[in-house]
């Protein structure tokens, strides 16, 4: 155990910090869930790519720096520290990208990864369906083989970024006789094809971070299949595991939020009110605990101990912590917490967004089942 950075790690941190200080936009970009904001975030991603900072953990040949997980965490710390923009292509770079590297063909890697790293192609995610939310195995959207093409039909929902994205990835039922997790295939699909209708879904804050996607005889080449046909569930679960495990919410995000909370507390709160200072201390400990836990996890991954169902613990932990951070901030803000716009809107908006955390990427109820069944070995009960 050595929790000091190596000189190599420190140099990496310094390089990232210097680049970010020189390049991060001085005023915040508009939300990437607006047309204008989406475009501006794409420009930012392009700049990141040009500095080779858009996908630091990727191989150099695809635009990355071959950074190990520790360095990835260091980069994330510097990124949040610099107050840099949200990652509009997170679905691609952090979710789909690693999956393509694991199961994609060389041709797919060459085709999709560089344009992903540069955000020339921004990816939307298309997994859930109206009747397949927590129960992803209930998927009904179909892909029917026609020569060298798939014909896609059905409806997806909760497709994040899909309103403005270029492509999407999702799973489709390819063997109608197979049940639940079987007979599904992971398919990549441009969003501008004939037969595709994207209907934005307005969130609680009015923004459209999600969409429904309707597929009506949409034709894509079979070459767009990722991984084996009818094995899409396994491909998707590999992605979901990585998402829940580490990359979906890097610790730096919460450390940064807690730092802002402490600043808010110092500025506006009564320092003698122990109920409040205890609450702030608690979330500081949570964010710090999550950071340490993640360093421990990735050290384990580097030493060959893969992350398993424990990923579900992370999902519950960060999502509940995020809600709590924002609850405390809103309590400190008092009457200001009632305003959607104004000097503190980031906190109010962040509160609303935090409420989606215990729901998306598998509700926390599902995660608790997974922990009980796979980690604690309790009997299945569904």
């Amino acid at each position: 155990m050595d929790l000091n950075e190596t000189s190599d790690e420190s140099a990496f941190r310094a390089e990232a910090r210097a680049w970010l200080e020189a390049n991060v936009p001085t005023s915040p970009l508009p939300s990437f869930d607006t047309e204008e904001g989406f475009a501006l975030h794409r420009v930012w991603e392009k700049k990141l790519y040009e500095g080779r900072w858009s996908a630091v953990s990727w191989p150099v040949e695809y635009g990355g720096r071959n950074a190990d997980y520790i360095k990835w965490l260091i980069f994330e710390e510097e990124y949040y520290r610099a107050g840099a923009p949200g990652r509009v292509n997170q679905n691609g770079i952090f979710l789909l990208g690693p999956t393509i590297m694991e199961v994609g063909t060389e041709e797919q890697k060459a085709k999709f990864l560089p344009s992903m790293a540069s955000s020339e192609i921004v990816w939307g995610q298309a997994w859930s369906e109206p009747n397949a939310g927590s129960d992803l195995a209930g998927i009904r959207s179909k892909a029917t083989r026609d020569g060298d093409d798939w014909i896609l039909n059905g409806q997806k929902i909760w497709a994040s970024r899909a309103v403005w994205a270029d492509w999407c990835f999702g799973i489709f039922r390819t063997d109608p006789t197979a049940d639940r997790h079987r007979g599904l295939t992971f398919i990549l699909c441009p969003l501008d094809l004939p037969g595709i209708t994207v209907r934005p879904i307005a969130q609680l804050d009015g923004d459209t971070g999600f969409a429904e996607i309707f597929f009506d005889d949409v034709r894509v080449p079979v070459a767009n299949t990722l991984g084996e046909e009818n094995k899409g569930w396994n491909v998707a679960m590999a992605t979901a595991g990585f998402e829940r495990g580490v990359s979906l919410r890097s610790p730096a995000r919460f450390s940064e939020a807690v730092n802002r909370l402490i600043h808010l507390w110092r500025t506006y709160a009564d320092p003698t009110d122990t109920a409040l200072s205890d609450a702030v201390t608690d979330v500081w400990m949570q964010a710090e605990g999550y950071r340490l836990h993640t360093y421990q996890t990735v050290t384990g991954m580097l030493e060959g101990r893969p992350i398993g169902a424990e990923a579900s613990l992370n999902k519950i932990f960060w999502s509940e912590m995020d809600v709590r951070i924002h609850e405390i901030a809103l309590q400190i803000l008092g009457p200001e917490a009632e305003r959607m716009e104004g000097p503190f809107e980031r906190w109010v908006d962040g509160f609303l967004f935090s409420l989606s955390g215990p729901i998306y990427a598998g509700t926390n109820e599902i995660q608790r089942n997974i922990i009980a069944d796979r980690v604690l070995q309790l009997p299945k009960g569904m």
Partner: protein
Amino acid sequence: MKFSFTDDQRLFAKGLRDLLANECTPAHVREAWESHTGHIPQLWTRLSEMGVLSMLVPESAGGMGGTLIDAILLFQELGRAGVPGPVLEHMAVAAPALANTSWGPSLVDGSQIATLWVDNSPYVAHAQVANLVLRNEAVITGFSTSDAHGIDGGRQLFTISGGTETSASAEVFGLPASDVMALSSAAYLIGASERMIEVAAEYARQREQFGKPIGSFQAVKHLMSDALLKVEFAKAPTYRAAWSASTGAATAVRDISMAKALASEAAYRASRSTMQVHGGIGYTWEADLQLWMKKSWALMRAYGDATFHRRRVGASVLSK
């Protein structure tokens, strides 16, 4: 000792519930939100006709002459329906406080609309649709408003400036406006919580995952039961606070604070649990749940949040 409402009180509340079921559906509330007025004029007229707006105004001033006990179930029904606009401010404070002033008649018949500006907030809710704003010791008219973008479209938030001040008292039954609002908000929040729970229970009966209604899963059952628990145990304290306020009990302020603290926390819990039960749908603009959630998030902080009121209770019961 008799802790119950009279048949008349129950029937009046039932009458209001029936009225609101028709005149204040989620579609009506959405319309008020989307019109950026946060107000339903036709409903206002009906509430006036029914005597809701003037419930606390003495009969001598043309009102119903009711007490806060008579009114408490009405506040709760208003919350169940998520009635938008300054109905609590007008009914619970402005109309009774100004009943014997020149504004009295127009407030009793609802032809003028009043709202409040309480000390602990820089904002005035509903100012844009209000003809007058009642502040501690003054009525303000002819003010101009600037939108402060409140989270609840049924409780639009403004800063106001300019206007003319006329001195007036904002006391009702010997209590300051903020306390009467804390009490009426507590009841409103209870109604809103009950509605969120009903809406989520209905969703949980319909929505299927893993081949069953999600309401059949223990995790959902327990989320819902715990939410209900907090609401049910906020009710008796709220009704007691109405009694204490009506009878001038020495504990009135403590009892109001207890009600507001419990109701605020119950409403927050209900909003969290029912949103979780809804899943992604609960996070959308389309789902009606937001109408009560956002109202809860606004009112739980307005007129003193749970911490403020808990500390007032603590100051009363721990000292000595």
